[in-house]
Structures are given as C-alpha cells and as structure tokens.
C-alpha cells in the first residue's frame, strides 16, 4: 500500500520538476522547429510581393536542389567536415598524449588546452585572419624567413580553404585533447607495465593498449566534432566572409545570408530544414551508440 502511494507522488513530483525544462524546450526548440517546416512551404511571389507569404508547397525544396550555390555551400561544408574532423582528432590525440606526461606544475599545460576552447570561435577566426595576412602576417613572414615566397592565403580559393581548416583544427583540437586526456587517465598503468615486461615497444603499447582503451572517448569526441563541423559558420565568416567569391561559403553561411540579407524566409527555412535533417541523421547515430554502450556497461 505505502510503496504504491509513494511511487505515485514520486512520479508526479518528477514530472513537476521536469516541467520547467519541458516548457523552455517547447518554446525555444520544438515550436520554432515546427514553424521552420511550415515556413519552408511558403514563399513570396516576386511578381506579386504585396500578397505576402503564400503557400508554395515543396517548391522551395525543388529550388534548393537546382540551386548551384546550395550544392557548392553543402560541398564546402562536407569538405570542412572531411578534412577537419580527422585532423583535429589526430592533433587532439597528440596534444592529449603530450599533456599526459607527469608535470610537476600542471597549470600551464591545462590552460594551454583550455584557452583555445574558451576563446569565441569568431575571435579565433579574427586572430588567424591576422596571422594569414599577406604583407604583415606571421605566417608569410615565417615562410619568407625560411626562403619561400609569401602566399595569397585569403584571396586564393584553395589557400583560403586550407587557412580556414588550420584555424578550425587549432580551435577544436584542444577540446578533443581534453576529452581524450580524461580517457587516457582512466587507463590503468598496470597494463603498460605488463606490456613493458613482455617487451612491447612504445609504438606497440600505443596501438595495442592506448587506442583500444580510448575507443569510446574517441568515438564521442568524433561525433561531437562532426556535429559542430556541420554548423561551421563563425570561423569562415570572420576569416573570408565566404570569399573569394563564394568559394569558402558553408551551408550555414548561405542560410544566414538567405534569411537575414535577402530576407527570403521561405527559401531560408527550406535550406535550414535540409540541414536539420542532415544533422539529425548524425545525431541518431550518436544516440544509438550511447544507448548500446550504456547497455554494455550494465547500467
């Protein structure tokens, strides 16, 4: 009798405590996403703009599929993902291994990892824009000191892409390193000691112990990184503004321009809805993985 009564009150209290979060989510996420899809089915007729937003069905989506700029900005976004996600994993893993040495003074290393994380993306973009400046930037200066010709970093499409990728990798690798470092510190030392006794080289220890033990942390870090890479906006915005031409423009930047500069909400919403679907696919993969892994640990 008593447990049942307690159960019920516990349940209603639970939902009461979850209510504020649910209300906020409904207001800021669920309702707007709903209107996003609704708006994407509307558009302003250019021949008759006074009529306001009219129902156009799936027209905006068909337009998107025939829009070269949609495809090129999507391709750029995918290129950023394909290049920067593996690179920041490798750099992040390197930083994590270096940061895992037994330092007597911890703070310079810890702050060295935290600072790039805490810096706003747009500031990182501005700072690296300054680094890649043609005449006075530190990158070209170093190239010239080493006897190379200075490069037109931000006005050549390929070089601008490379410069943006370098900035993204610098900005995101330290967060990766922090997550991987936490994973490294959970690996028992005894495993390495046993391997040492068996005569395993450092490289063998890395491949046979470190990498397999880090696998969950690497997976989580990769998914987080991919999901943020899909939304790449701030760094190219600050470094090139999408230029030269539209050569470094990402899908997020194109959506922003369509909605706020061209004020085409219908089309912008259709693009945003497509992006939403794209990243939800990535998220569901992540959720599937976490559910599987939490099942494995027996919780």
């Amino acid at each position, binding site marked *: 009798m008593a447990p049942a009564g307690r*159960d019920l009150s*516990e349940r209603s209290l*639970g*939902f009461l*405590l*979850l209510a*504020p*979060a649910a209300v906020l*989510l409904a*207001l*800021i*996420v669920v309702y*707007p*996403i709903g209107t*996003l899809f609704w708006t994407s089915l509307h558009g302003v007729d250019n021949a008759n703009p006074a009529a306001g937003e009219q129902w156009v069905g799936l027209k905006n989506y068909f337009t998107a599929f025939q829009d070269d700029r949609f495809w090129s900005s999507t391709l750029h976004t995918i290129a950023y993902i394909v290049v920067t996600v593996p690179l920041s994993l490798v750099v992040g893993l390197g*930083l994590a291994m*270096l*940061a895992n*040495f037994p*330092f007597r003074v911890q*703070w*310079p*290393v810890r*702050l060295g990892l*935290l*600072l*790039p994380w*805490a*810096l706003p*993306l*747009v*500031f990182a973009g501005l700072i*690296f824009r*300054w*680094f890649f*400046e043609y*005449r*006075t930037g530190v990158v070209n200066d170093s190239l010239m000191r080493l006897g190379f010709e200075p490069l037109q970093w931000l006005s050549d499409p390929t070089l601008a892409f490379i410069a943006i990728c370098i900035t993204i990798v*610098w900005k995101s690798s330290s*967060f990766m*390193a*922090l*997550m991987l470092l*936490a994973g490294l510190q959970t690996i028992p030392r005894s495993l390495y000691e046993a391997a040492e006794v068996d005569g395993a080289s450092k490289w063998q220890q890395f491949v046979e112990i470190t990498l397999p033990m880090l696998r969950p*942390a690497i997976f*989580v870090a990769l998914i*987080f990184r991919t*999901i943020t890479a899909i939304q790449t906006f701030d760094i190219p915005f600050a470094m090139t503004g999408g230029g030269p031409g539209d050569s470094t423009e990402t*899908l997020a930047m194109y959506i*922003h321009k369509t*909605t706020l500069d061209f004020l085409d*909400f219908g089309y912008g919403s259709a693009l*945003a*809805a497509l*992006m*939403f679907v*794209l*990243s939800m696919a990535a*998220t569901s993969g992540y959720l599937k993985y976490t*559910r599987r892994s939490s099942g494995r640990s027996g919780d």
Partner: protein
Amino acid sequence: MPFNLSRRATVWFAGLIVAANGFFPAVWILLTSLKTETELIRSPITFLPDAPTLENYVIAFTAQPILRFMWNSFVVASLSTILCVFVSALAAYALTRLRIPRRNLIMSLLLAVAMFPLISLMVPLFKVMRELGLLNTYLALILPYAVLSMPVCTLVMASFFQDIPPDLEAAAMVDGCSRVGALWKVVVPLSAPGVFTAAILAFVNAWDEFLLALTMMNRVNMRTLSVGITLYQGEFAFPWPLISAALIIAIVPICILIAVFQERVVGGLTSGGVKG
C-alpha cells in the same frame, strides 16, 4: 643519470608544445596590441614592440562602446546561466533521484537537443522573436542560451547528484523537510561543485556565442562582445593593433574565469562528454 635527464627534457618539451600551441595566438595579439600601425607594416615584421604604446587601448575604449558590449555580454551570460542552472538542477534531480518512467528516453531527448544545428533554430527563432517584439532585448538571447546549455548542465549535475547518498535526504525528510526542501537544503549544497561547474560551462557558452547574438541584436548598443569586436574592422582596412587591443580587452574576463576555475572546467567538460 643521462636517462633521467633526457626524460625530464622530454617532459619539459611536451609541456612546452602544449602550452605554446594554446598561448601563442593570445601572446601574439597582446604584442600586436602594443605596436603602432607604422611598426606593423615594417618588413620583416618585428616580434617585440619597438616602442610599446597603450594608445590602441585608449582608441579601443572610445571607437566603439566596448564597455557597453561587455555589460551586454555579462547581463545575457549571467541571467541565462542562472535560468539554465535552476531549470537543469530540477531536471537532473528528477532524472537521477526519483523513479520516473522512461527515464532514459527523456535523457536521450535532452541530449538530442544539444545536437540541434543552431542555424536551423536561428531562422524560426528570429521570426518568433520578431513577432513577440523581443528583437534587441536581452530576453531574445537569455532564453535560447539557457536552453542551449541545458543538456550539458543537466548531465554535469546529474553525475554529481548520483554520488550523494540517498540516506542523507531521507534523514532530512524525517526531520520534517519536504522533498523539494531536501533538494535545496541537502542535495544542492552537497553538489555545489557540480552546480558551480555547470554554471561556468553555461556562462562560457553564452559569452562565446556569435550566430544568435549577430541575428537577434542589430542595434549597436545591444551588441554583445563577440559581435561587437567585429565592428572594429573598417570596410576595407583592418586596423590590427586596434582590433588586437579590443580582443585582449574582450578575452581578459574569460581568461580570468578559466584560469581561476581551470580544474573545475576540465572536470565539467569531460564528465559531460565522456559519461554522456
């Protein structure tokens, strides 16, 4: 002995690389901010400023209302943090200490929100805020920021709540506390480090956000710091010493915050990520 020496050198070298990688950009703009425009265009470039000057900082304070930007960022970040931590604390408590059905599903849904592309949310949120007449008000950023940090804050606090022995709560309730009373008087004080960690993460997230800040606030005196700094660039010219000075002013508060609470921040970031 030689082995010992080389081992110590390796450790030093490893630390140096990590620290240099993290600090170099900040150090470089600090040096730039002390240079004059004429020194800057010299070739080859100088590393240390020839004649250090604070002039750029004076201009940074007068050319744009940077203190106003900072105040806006501070108001938005702290109010959204308070809202976020309060709401997340209640949710985390319900999810960890109360028996509710479909607990895992609720947790997963919350996590899914963290993965939403902000840009997809930006378009309809802009419309909603415009219809509500909230553009260029703090509320237009406070509400979304609170929601965006909710998943990570809930996770961080949930992992702290889990470690508190249930007996303590039971004891408080025997002493006449209600369950919610027990939450505030027993659970929250005991998990203060977790609450605090969550608060720092939410604050930094809000302080750094750019896209929504750019979208929701188009009046100069409502701009937050991350957007305001981009106003220092001319249409064609980039006055780098001035921009560097403004950047230094803008990153000092956040640097102090992470320097003082570094261990907590690292713990929070990794518990949100690894345990998630």
